[in-house]
């Protein structure tokens, strides 16, 4: 039997939440930026290493600089969060610690994966420069453009949800 799990992507606008989902679900990428309003919902079924099938219902939320600005109805019944920021724009991770604290306080039992996206745009030295701010908090360094670590992110989270 297939289990359904709701995954919600959060983060500032323009960090690449929709692009990560498009890369994961359709394996495509577009340089064009289209602002998400409200929510888009996609679905992808994957097999876990222990041969279980899991159906991921992925909610792509409109970007906000504060997770508390999201409509509460969107977050209802969430099984896992992915908090995305843009590694090339400090404004998108400057409040990262606070944002994660809010999520941990409001949803203490729901796993959160923290993603530094757009790593194709930044050099390793630049990432190192910001390490003090986000290194201990980041779980995955992804690039929706190159596809780097995108599948790994979703499959790791899915495994934790079973």
């Amino acid at each position, binding site marked *: 039997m297939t289990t*359904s799990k*709701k995954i919600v992507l959060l983060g500032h*606008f*323009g960090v690449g939440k929709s692009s990560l989902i498009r890369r994961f679900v359709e394996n495509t990428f577009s340089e064009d*930026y*289209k*602002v*998400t*309003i*409200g*929510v*888009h*919902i*996609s*679905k992808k079924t994957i097999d876990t290493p222990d041969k279980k099938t899991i159906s991921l*219902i992925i909610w792509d939320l*409109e*970007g906000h600089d504060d997770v508390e600005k999201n*409509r509460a*109805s*969107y977050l*209802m*019944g969430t099984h896992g969060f992915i908090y995305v920021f843009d590694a*090339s*724009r*400090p*404004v998108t991770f400057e409040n990262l610690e606070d944002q994660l604290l809010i999520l941990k306080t409001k949803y203490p039992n729901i796993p959160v994966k923290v993603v530094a996206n757009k790593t194709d745009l930044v050099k390793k030295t630049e990432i190192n420069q910001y390490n003090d701010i986000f290194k201990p908090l980041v779980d995955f360094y992804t690039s929706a453009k190159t596809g780097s670590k995108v599948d790994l992110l979703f499959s790791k989270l899915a495994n934790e949800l079973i």
Partner: protein
Amino acid sequence: MLETYIKKYHKNNFQYILVDAAGKVIETDNHIIPIGNLTQIQEVHPFFEAFSDLFFIKNESYDFLCINLDFDKTSIIADITLQTHNDNKNLIIIEDLTKHYNNYQLAAQNRNESLINAQILKLKNLHLKEKEQFKNIFIANFSHQLRNPITALNIFSNLLKDTTLDDTQESYVNVINTANKNLKQSVEGILDISKIEAGKLILVEKVFSLKALLNEIINEHKLHITKKNIEFNFILDPKLPEFLNGDSFRLKQIIGNLLSNATYFTLKGFINLNISLNHIRANKANLHIKVSDTGIGIDPKDYEQIFKRFTKIESTIKNDMSTGLGLSITQYLISQMDGNIKVQSEIGIGSVFTCNISFKLATSYDKNLKEVLLHKVRKRLDKKHNILLVEDSELIQLSILKIIAADGNFFLNIISNGDDFISTIMDQDVDLILLSSTIQNYTAEELTKSLRKLSKEYKKIPVISISSKAFKEDIKSLKKAGINDVITKPFDEETLLNTIHQYLK
């Protein structure tokens, strides 16, 4: 009547769907999304999977706003309400608001794009500034490292020139001298640019004799110009004021640069230097400087280009060993003096550079300074004075030793270790101290402060710092620590002896 209009214009953008507790569709009006009866609502769109758990909660209402529903052939943006009931019949109401939300999307798109672009621009600027800063620090450090060898080269080639040499040897020394002079100019040019970029090139105000300065410039350049078989004419307006108050070093640099360029690019013909007084207003003299040549000339389309740093126009690149900084620095200096510079030129005919610069007139208040300037010639001192040199660079030690020995007015004692500084001073008679700005483990500031803390007699000993740091704040910091004067490397014999003589009369 109204009924008719309502029938005509009313748009039904609602769809009502009745589902059971498992999500099976019992009834639907299919106004927006075509759904067959008995279909599982969760299969219509993954959004409805969120309802699976809610169907079991009785008599509740849930609103989901701005839901993007994408289907194979169509997409809508809707507000969706779920109303659960006691009888296991759940009502889903879909209100299609695509048009409304699309307008909102457009506004959000514009706002977000401009915010992101502004952030990216700000970051790019920041990165550029950081790069620029790194470059300036690198240049400052690099030129700093060159100062000791240039100073030594300069002093020893001059000393060598004064020994008995045959013609071939003398010509070799001349080559070394010229090469070193060019090297010194290049290093100073690069350092000036880094100062300009860091906003640290500050003009000084000091009374100077304009006539003496112009004679100095003319004498220096006459030799180079006439050596190339080029005619050199200069006309100095008799109305030029004798004394001005301003940065004479930089004025010399401006005129010198224009003359050097003219010499460089003129192969035959003449170079004219014309300096006249435009006017005197509000106690300020406005000078008109004109340098004309019969050189290779500049294409008018390159006029702007030649004032940019590191720029060399195509026609001048061949055989040009300069850094291309001179005119950029000249233009900056003139602008700092509230002046202007213009060029008029014709390829193959020649160029005319004109600039107007204002200087304060020296006032009677500055009279004593005038006297100092008028009596610049060094006098023979009544007795031999003791100079203590604290310097750890052997090159500089040897250079200073040679200069001091040749002057014949002084005894020189050298220490290369800061630890011995105070004990040496207490043990020996010292009339003046030459102190390197950086010797191992100590700064010149620290050593001077500890000297000034000793008894009264030590407070009066003149301390001259030989500094390889040339920024204004470096000099300010040295003077604040009690250092009387600062000589920056690379220095020459004249500067060193003039400064020493100024403090030992």
